[in-house]
């Protein structure tokens, strides 16, 4: 495919010339990466809305099988790729981290959709984790709410590109003493303990959202309750008197 980067020392012209004669020249790396990149087995693991788009990607129209990734494994032990498809809540986060720990090397993670990247639209919820990258490392972030099935395929291609860049000598999983397992957070009295894993994630240095709106926008709650007991004056006007005036630019 067009996007496959040629990493071997044999130059492309000679290679295609040989290819025409039926001789395939490949480095071990290429072979190794080709094999891995064409058989990424994702885990059958849906959390929320994005999971439906994930299923749609697996179905006839988008057909993820063209990328060798149609084999959705229900068990983390047999899968290479975890597609975190949907909102990760604080209650679910320990399970997600545990699933990641159970996956065999080499393992990759795609966060699909805004929710799993940073909490997305539900970022202000009291039970919503602001991004699964607080606990586990992520390979490809795929924004959208939900991303189109094509976008998921694009994310998968992005991951394939990443795999193509790896070399057999330097891959982490052949190094001694590698243990890509991360401590599983616990449910505490106010949220998860710890709030994030500083080895994996650090807060943004400048967080506009926090500066501008406060931590959650929700804290400025109202201090005056409506009085439903008061008698209704005839039929109330449907909307308030304040009309929608065109806002001025000043």
């Amino acid at each position: 495919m067009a996007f496959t980067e040629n990493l071997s020392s044999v130059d492309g012209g000679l290679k295609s010339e040989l290819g025409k004669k039926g001789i395939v020249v490949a480095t071990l790396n290429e072979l190794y990466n080709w094999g891995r990149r064409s058989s990424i087995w994702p885990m059958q693991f849906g959390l929320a809305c994005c999971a439906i788009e994930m299923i749609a990607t697996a179905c006839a129209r988008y057909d993820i099988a063209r990328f060798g990734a149609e084999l959705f494994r229900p068990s983390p032990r047999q899968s290479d790729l975890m597609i975190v498809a949907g909102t990760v809540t604080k209650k679910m986060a320990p399970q997600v981290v545990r699933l990641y720990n159970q996956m065999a090397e080499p393992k990759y993670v795609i966060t699909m959709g805004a929710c799993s990247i940073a909490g997305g639209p539900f970022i202000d919820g009291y039970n919503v984790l602001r991004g699964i990258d607080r606990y586990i490392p992520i390979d490809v972030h795929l924004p959208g709410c939900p991303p189109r099935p094509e976008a998921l395929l694009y994310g998968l291609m992005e991951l394939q590109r990443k795999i193509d860049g790896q070399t057999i000598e330097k891959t982490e999983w052949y190094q001694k003493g590698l243990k890509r397992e991360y401590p599983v957070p616990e449910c505490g009295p106010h949220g998860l303990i710890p709030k994030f894993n500083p080895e994996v994630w650090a807060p943004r240095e400048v967080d506009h959202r926090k500066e501008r709106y406060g931590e959650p926008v929700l804290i400025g709650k109202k201090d005056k309750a409506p009085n439903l007991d008061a008698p209704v004056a005839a039929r109330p006007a449907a909307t308030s008197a304040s009309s929608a005036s065109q806002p001025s630019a000043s």
Partner: protein
Amino acid sequence: MEKIFSARDPSALNTETLEINFGPQHPSTHGVFRMNIVCDGETVVSLKPVMGYLHRNHEQIAENMSYAASMPYTDRLDYFNSMSNNFGYSLAVEKLANIEVPERAQYIRVIMAELTRLVNHVSVIGFLLNDLGAFFTPVLYAFREREKILDIFEEVSGARMMCNYFRFGGVKYEIQPHILQRIKEIVKKFPKFLEEFEALLSKNEILCMRCQNVGVLPKELAVSASITGPMLRASGVDYDIRKVDKYSIYGRFKFRIPLGEKGDVYDRYYVRILEMHESLKILDQALKDIPATGELVSKKMAPFLKSPRNFKPPVGEAYGRVEAPKGELGFYVVSDGTPQPWRYHVRAPSFINLTILEDMCLGHKIADVIVILGSVDIVLGEVDH
């Protein structure tokens, strides 16, 4: 040797119940649903659902933003049918602020809601059959049809799943004649697909054996447990909010309400198929009667499209409900006269339909639990809201 002899005598055997944790990561729980099942051998003795793994604080978030800004969040409640969720929410707010909806918008709303019902039922049946062991083929067929309808949604509203199409007092975009033509084509071709889909497995012996007399829900229990939607009607209770409330313009259409006899899994499966036929009838009539022109949003609400934050309904409360594909979807909104609602509550059908999951599963084998759960038709976004 002694051990073997004693094992052969069942009375001497020391038996224990087995506790199984089912979920939250399991391919057959339709999301992050979890059940604690106690089994005696393979028979279910007790079943406790554990939810909240997708509790996204929809109510809390909605209480802190303007009324219109909650509309895209309702899409994400039951992410199969964003249109009917929008419908329920806009009905509630329209009731609260006493807003009229123009004629053409009413028709568009009904068309969209019924298309959503088709999408939902067809995919639910696909998943149910998938759970029964017909691995993925029915889902493939179902999603093929679903994609065609999603194309319509995308063309009309701009998004495949999260349509955010309804506005208080109307709908957002105009629906062009060529799109109506395409909907007509889909409606024309759908019965043929349904026939095939039905023939695929309805008379299949394995399906019949696994579905009939499994997970029977008696009429009285269904009413007392507030079950709604196809599940209630499969138990033989004639209650469809489209007929009872005649909300929007449903009073104008002629359609029947399919009812089940026994209330088992097969009835629930079949009621859904029949409901799709009725939906097609409604669509047929709506597409014939829809006025060619007309305003999309009522005059009163048109200025608020541009500035949703200025919309302040009067102090009061309203409960709007619609017959969503999964059951009665209700929105309870209390206004305090400010742009944000004081209280916003969702009465999620699939959440309440789960109440009697244990009653239906008791005494059945553990493999039937999955089938029964599939026939309840849950979507976790709605269960945990």
